[in-house]
């Protein structure tokens, strides 16, 4: 008998053979169940073993059913133990509370947390890659801003009047010529390049100063290329300004304020003024043109 036992126990199950008990219990997935069915149709030995397994299964169920059930005291004991447990109303309330940053993450399973972290990391990497690609294609010095580009297009002399913004002050009439429209658009560009206080608080004298003639815009070289914003912090432009001898300190102070300018040095009788937010050569040209029209300014030139 021992020899027989050893022989029996040394055998290894075939793949389908090993699945037969689960097939008999009806707990195989559809794919494996189909494989077993196909094998059973072709293999008589497998059919015989399957019959044996069904017998084993039936007797196992019968054996377990004979075991009975626990007495009612088991439930009483359980409920008594539950009653003796510390009240967890507070913890239950905390768990069911919808808000709470820490609570939200605490309720996530470790697997969910891991997937979320992986997804977040991947999203960051993709974002970094996209930004890098954009920078590499457009060159390191600059990238274009859509609304700024739109503004530049509006100022282009080739553009017809309807492209101008809806501001009542700047909308040209239908009768104006294209050249007049271009001039107005250029003026708008010049006005918007000047610090906000100059536009918003046009005192009578300031209005005279800040409403530059068409020559201001005309003196500016037409912008043929789209304006670009540097991603490198730009340095504010500096101009050397000589004031008239009769200029009073209060007038100079008012002018500095309205141009958002600050004194950063001197060159002979001229003061070196730096203009906040004005960073391009075009900005400097606009500023210089406007300054030269100021009553108290004798001379205004670019400074380095």
């Amino acid at each position: 008998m021992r020899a027989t036992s050893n022989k029996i126990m040394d055998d290894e199950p075939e793949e389908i053979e090993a699945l037969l008990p689960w097939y008999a219990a009806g707990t195989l997935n559809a794919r494996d169940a189909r494989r077993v069915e196909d094998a059973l149709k072709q293999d008589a030995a497998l059919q015989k073993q399957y019959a044996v397994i069904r017998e084993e299964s039936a007797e196992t169920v019968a054996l377990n059913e004979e075991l009975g059930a626990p007495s009612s005291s088991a439930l009483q004991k359980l409920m008594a133990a539950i009653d003796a447990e510390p009240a967890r109303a507070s913890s239950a309330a905390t768990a069911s509370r919808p808000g709470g940053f820490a609570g939200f993450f605490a309720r996530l399973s470790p697997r969910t947390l891991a997937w979320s972290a992986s997804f977040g990391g991947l999203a960051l990497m993709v974002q970094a890659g996209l930004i890098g690609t954009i920078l590499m294609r457009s060159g390191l010095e600059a990238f274009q801003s859509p609304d700024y580009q739109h503004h530049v297009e509006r100022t282009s002399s080739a553009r017809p009047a309807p492209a101008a913004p809806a501001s009542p002050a700047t909308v040209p009439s239908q009768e104006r010529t294209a050249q007049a429209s271009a001039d107005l658009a250029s003026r708008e560009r010049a006005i918007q390049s000047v610090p906000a206080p100059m536009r918003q608080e046009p005192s009578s004298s300031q209005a005279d100063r800040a409403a530059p003639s068409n020559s201001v815009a005309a003196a500016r070289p037409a912008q043929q290329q789209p304006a670009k914003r540097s991603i490198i912090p730009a340095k504010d432009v500096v101009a050397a300004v000589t004031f008239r001898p009769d200029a009073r300190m209060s007038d100079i102070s008012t002018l500095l304020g309205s141009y958002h300018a600050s004194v950063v040095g001197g060159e002979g009788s001229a003061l070196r003024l730096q203009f906040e937010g004005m960073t391009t050569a075009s900005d400097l040209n606009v500023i210089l043109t406007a300054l030269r029209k100021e009553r108290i300014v004798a001379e205004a030139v670019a400074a380095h």
Partner: protein
Amino acid sequence: MSSTSETADEALIARIAQGDKAAMRVLYGRHHVRVFRFGLRLVRNEQLAEDLISEVFLDVWRQAGRFEGRSAVSTWLLGIMRFKALSALRRRTDAELDDETAGSIADTADDPEVTVQKKDTGDALRACLTSLTPEHREIIDLVYYHEKSVEEVAEIVGIPENTVKTRLFYARKKLAVLLQAAGIERGWP
């Protein structure tokens, strides 16, 4: 177990996590007999198995909030029972266990020839099923009686799925050996 009842089980667990004692009674009523029998087949002592069933469901009460639903509730319950049964067995000395089991459940493990006296193959089979080692009894019960899939048995017992398959195969072979010793041939293996 159908997917509907599994969903209902998960809903019960969610309510239990909120402190709903009525949900606890429903879940107990639905599962306590099978879980008790699984434990009884492991520890072979009715009183001990009854104590364990209370402990299992008390654990459910305490840990319901941490149930993640990755497996069926019944699988979770059997896993808790198995852990508690093995822990209880480890706490007892062999001598204590032998004394108590002798009086609670008939065990023919050392005497397979007894089965010869059985009237038919069914009786002999049941006697031999009882004679198997706890390891083999456990896996046969889980597959045939508790209707657990390969994956679920692997989770409950804590072994790889391939080991589950080979362990059941060897359990069945051992059963065949016991039956042969009892003079019963079934045509396999």
